[in-house]
């Protein structure tokens, strides 16, 4: 490519997928993998039908239902009519268009962003899209993965390409040894707290530095997952030995000689020394304290040792007004210690934190303890396979003994589309990625935190410093 100027990981994946470059810089980008779910696809399939178009590459596409499905009594079907209609519509569409589908009762069913990597469908160097903003999760493998809207879903189904303008490169460099009690979730919350929810707008973030290198794939996925909460289009981590050993042996991953060839290619992907980034942010996590949010935007982070802030500390009038509205909605008083705030509901799950590693963390805190009276605590594995693995390790027994509910895989209480909702006015400690007003149900008050911190909150009945639990 162009004189072999040093290129970033993003540049390399981008360049290798350009089908056509338009005069104005827009590129027609080839898409290797398209993940489809029930919420953002019905209007896209309808568009195809109306125009008499087919799905160009069913073999690059896979569909699963996750947002609407109940996490109990799966066999008795979906009670809510509009949820059932959406799932049935997906099933009709995949049948009509010949798209591979993972049925609701299949063990491999789960949250779309959990099962892509888990099944080896998402691999390094790929372009991956899904009609869902948290597609950024798959970037942890060193893939260019981003969320798209329904019109774009239709576009990819019809053409296996997308017209896109190249994003800018941002590097977030994380160094320092992660202190006990802190996890990947605390890292990404700290990053969003630093750069804000618009900090990454127009950019693809590459996470680098020794702390990221030391994270396992689950942790990298947690970090990349919330790139969108930092405003970025996608998040990436350069593929390395950790990535390769994660991929090897997954059901759809290349095997034997094909895997060797793939790995040889993947080794060429990391950013070249001297590659230019439009923005660089560095973070040292040596002194990191477990984090959580206080408001209704993911950037409103505070260490567990901190207090609810005073809106008057914001000089920008729009921000001050937002902070005031947030405190009202969250029913919080400035100056309150975070550890003095009681919780009603605890949700451990979502594509941010429902992998086996997350459930192990929660179980480690829960073991031999009891959920505080009056607190409802749910653990929702990200896929049927994770659920089985956890059960084989006895984690479900430990969690249930402590008073946690153990559910079937799905998006569950991450968003108010299925029966798992946080009741109006109730306060939730959630391992998910969004604390927007009404996200977990109308009037729900959401605080984002790590699985260990969520489990600690369930036990204490209020937010608690997990470092006092180990």
């Amino acid at each position, binding site marked *: 490519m162009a004189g072999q100027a040093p290129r970033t990981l993003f540049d390399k994946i981008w360049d290798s997928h350009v*089908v*056509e470059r*338009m005069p*104005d*810089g*827009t590129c*027609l980008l*080839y898409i*290797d993998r398209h993940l489809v779910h029930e*919420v*953002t696809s*019905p*209007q896209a399939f309808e568009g195809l039908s109306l125009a008499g178009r087919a799905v*160009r590459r*069913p*073999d*690059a596409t*896979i569909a699963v239902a996750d947002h609407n499905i109940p996490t109990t009594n799966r066999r008795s079907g979906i009670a809510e009519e509009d*949820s059932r*209609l*959406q799932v049935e519509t997906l099933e009709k569409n995949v049948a009509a268009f010949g798209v*591979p589908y993972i049925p609701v009762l299949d063990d491999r069913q789960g949250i779309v962003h959990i099962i892509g990597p888990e*099944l*080896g*469908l998402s*691999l390094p*160097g790929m372009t991956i899209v899904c009609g869902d*903003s948290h597609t950024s999760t798959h970037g942890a493998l060193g893939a260019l993965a981003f*969320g*798209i*809207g*329904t*019109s*774009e879903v*239709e*576009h990819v189904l*019809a053409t*296996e390409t997308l*017209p896109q303008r190249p994003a800018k490169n941002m590097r977030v460099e994380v160094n320092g040894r992660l202190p006990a009690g802190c996890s990947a979730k605390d890292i990404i919350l700290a990053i969003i707290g630093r750069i804000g929810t*618009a900090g990454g*707008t127009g950019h693809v973030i590459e996470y680098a530095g020794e702390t990221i290198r030391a994270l396992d794939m689950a942790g990298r996925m947690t970090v990349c997952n919330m790139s969108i909460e930092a*405003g970025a289009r996608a998040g990436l981590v350069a593929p390395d030995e950790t990535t390769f050993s994660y991929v090897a042996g997954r*059901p*759809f991953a*290349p095997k034997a000689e*094909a895997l060797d*060839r793939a790995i040889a290619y993947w080794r060429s992907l990391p950013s070249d020394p001297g590659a230019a980034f439009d923005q660089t942010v560095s973070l040292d996590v040596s002194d990191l304290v477990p984090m959580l949010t206080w408001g209704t935007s993911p950037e409103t982070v505070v260490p567990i040792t901190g207090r609810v802030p005073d809106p008057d500390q914001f000089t*920008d009038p*729009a*921000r001050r007004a*937002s902070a005031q509205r947030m405190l009202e909605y969250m029913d919080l008083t400035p100056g309150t210690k975070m550890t003095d705030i009681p919780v009603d509901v605890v949700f451990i799950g979502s594509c941010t934190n429902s992998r086996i590693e997350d459930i192990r963390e929660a179980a480690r805190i829960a073991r031999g303890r009891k959920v505080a009276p009056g607190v409802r605590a749910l653990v929702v594995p990200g896929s049927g396979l994770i659920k089985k693995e956890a059960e084989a390790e006895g984690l479900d027994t430990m969690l249930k003994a402590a008073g946690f509910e153990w559910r079937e895989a799905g998006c569950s209480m991450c*968003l108010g*589309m299925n029966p798992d909702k946080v009741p109006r006015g109730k306060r939730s400690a959630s391992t998910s990625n*969004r604390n*927007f*007003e*009404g*996200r977990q149900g*109308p*009037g729900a008050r959401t605080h984002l935190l790590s699985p260990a911190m969520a489990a600690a909150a369930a036990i204490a009945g209020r937010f608690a410093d997990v470092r006092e639990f180990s």
Partner: protein
Amino acid sequence: MEKFTKLTAIAAALPMANVDTDKVIPSRFLKTIKRTGLGKYLFDPLRYNPDDGRENPEFVLNREPWRKAGILVAGDNFGCGSSREHAPWALLDFGIRAVIAPSFGDIFYNNSLKNGLLPIRLPRQTCEQLMADAAMGGNARLTIDLERQVVVRPNGEEISFDIDPFHRHLLLEGLDDIGQTMALAPAIDRFEERRRREWSWLPSTTGA
């Protein structure tokens, strides 16, 4: 998609930063298989009283003349959050054809363009001026001329804005870009041919 050429309409000011797509349309209203009929859920958490579902009389779109607003002027980072295209669908169904803000969530910005909803980025100070214009309601309509790429204030002042030529063209002509891409099928075929050769390890979803 409906063409966008020139629009003169009442503008409503929403002087809040980070209006996320869950605020534009909460997830419980996404359980539809249609694109239409979402206008009644637009800004549900701001527009309706949570206890009895009645209109919040303070909210701008519940007041005359802004009930008929065709333009929205908002704060920073409008439309951040989820990829739901239901957000532009709900705005359009309500009657809003353009949103002006200092910055937008990336996916929302793209989704809007694909549906004939024009997102316009203007400096924060300019947005504040336009919000002041908007406060005058029916006496102070704004005009957006996409052909000339200007917003015309009620006092006649013209403010130019940027939009990429590709999307400007699609909006002006009301074109869907799938047709455009399909014309490039030979290039896509060639790319797939190369892909099969160079990345033969890429797994298919049809067999594990």
